[in-house]
């Protein structure tokens, strides 16, 4: 019974993701890192590879938001370039073949910002209108 309730909730979430992907087109995200070198800038390809578990020239640990959030839908649409279902499918391949695991998830933007602020070498994406503390570095921004 609990399983079916879970399933129903997932269906509702999925509806939300569908509509959020439409809303995603008009919004932007910033990708923020906690690094000592304030001059680091990444291009879209590097950010995509970073959040898909592929190697890039800078060593950073990506942290993400849950699939049902609008910010993640914006990030998927404008940076990763894949639907959430394709991303989930990809991570199931990586996880169960023992190659890599999906990025750690934080529940909401507040938790994510608090985590990034206190962990050197981490990187995450935020809504473009979030106030970013001075000690963090914006390494990429959509819509520019």
């Amino acid at each position: 019974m609990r399983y079916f309730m879970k399933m129903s909730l997932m269906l509702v979430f999925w509806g939300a993701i569908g509509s959020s992907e439409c809303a995603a087109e008009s919004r932007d995200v910033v990708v923020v890192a906690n690094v000592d070198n304030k001059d680091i800038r990444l291009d879209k390809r590097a950010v995509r590879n970073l959040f898909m578990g592929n190697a890039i020239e800078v060593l950073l640990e990506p942290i993400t938001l849950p699939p049902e959030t609008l910010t993640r839908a914006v990030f998927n649409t404008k940076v990763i370039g894949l639907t959430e279902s394709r991303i989930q499918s990809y991570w199931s391949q990586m996880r169960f073949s023992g190659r890599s695991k999906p990025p750690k998830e934080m529940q909401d933007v507040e938790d994510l910002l608090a985590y990034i602020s206190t962990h050197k070498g981490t990187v995450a994406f935020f809504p473009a209108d979030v106030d970013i503390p001075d000690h963090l570095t914006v390494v990429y921004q959509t819509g520019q």
Partner: protein
Amino acid sequence: MYKRLNTRVLLCFAVACLSVSQVSYAAEKLEISGFGRLVAGYLDDNNVKFEGYTNELTFSEQSLLAIQADYHLTDTLTVTSQLLAHNNSERDSGIEWFYLSYEPNTQWLFKAGKMRTPFYQYSDVLDVGFAYAWLSPPQQLYSAFLFNQYEGLSGIHRFALGPVSGSVELYTGRYHGDTSFQQKRYPTDIDNLRGIVLNAIVGGNLKLRSSYITADFALDLEEITQFANILRGAGFVESANSLTMEGEFDIYQAGAIYEEFDYHLAWEWMKITSNTILAPNITSYYLQGGYVFDPVTVNVTFANLITSAVEPANDIPFGVNPGLDQLFIAYNTTLQRTKASDLKSLTLGLRWDAGVNVAFKAEVTHYQGGIGISTFEPLSESAALAFDERANLYQIGMEFVF
């Protein structure tokens, strides 16, 4: 009996997994995850069996449930075990993976233990239907004909080089177990297994994969081996050797996937060569295209398998005496029975991602191919003659991960 037992194991496993998924693990060192699939299939031809499917609806060929435990001994050392309960009589339920991994940093990963063999793009996640578009990945490449696992060592190096993000994997090991095809199991020894896999992502959208595998192999085909021994005893060494499944094989693979937000294109090709007559050289490929009507994806796949012609030995004379004639006929009949056949298929599939970890699929595949060891198996002698070398396989299924 075996199938009934497997069903019970599957049910017990289902209950255990659902209970486990409810538990919140306080210990950060242990991660529990898993996957499963429930697949129903029906073949619209009453003369043959294909991959276990007949013209009776069955749920038992591909349905399975698996649970994976990752225990982090330290920040860099992890023990991983994957337990799988399968409902297919050709496969054993039990430990599918069991290995120790050492990941000193994000660039290097070493593994030692029992692992799945990474022949092709999806070989090591063949049981994880959620990871790919189909219910049955193209049989021309992903048939259960090959051994699935190996015991050995693997090392992966990830690198970035300008616009390319890639990885190189080297592995070596062995496999001593069974190979199953057409509901029969044959003792199999694979030694000196060595492989290399190259992966590259170019510009973000294009994924390339290429691999090479080689190994020594020996399959005990029981009655065929006994017959070969009779031929050898009678002095027909050439014919006897041609019925021996022992030698070396090489597999070459190449693949590409191009992904955009609303569509993807994929291609994969492989070639198997061996120095035995009984194991024919095979070339297979598939082409796939998918279009996303989020959350539904429509896929079309064309796949093809081409086998090389088998050259029979000719050291048994025909027409000399009735005894030799019988041996000649028996030899040629045996070769005929072990013949592989070409196979073409066209698949139309739908995948509906109903949630972040649940997908429903429906698929119809039209096959064209003859009777052969890795294609269609006739249900009787008369059915073999009646078979028109065409059949449709209908499947529906649910895939999930947790």
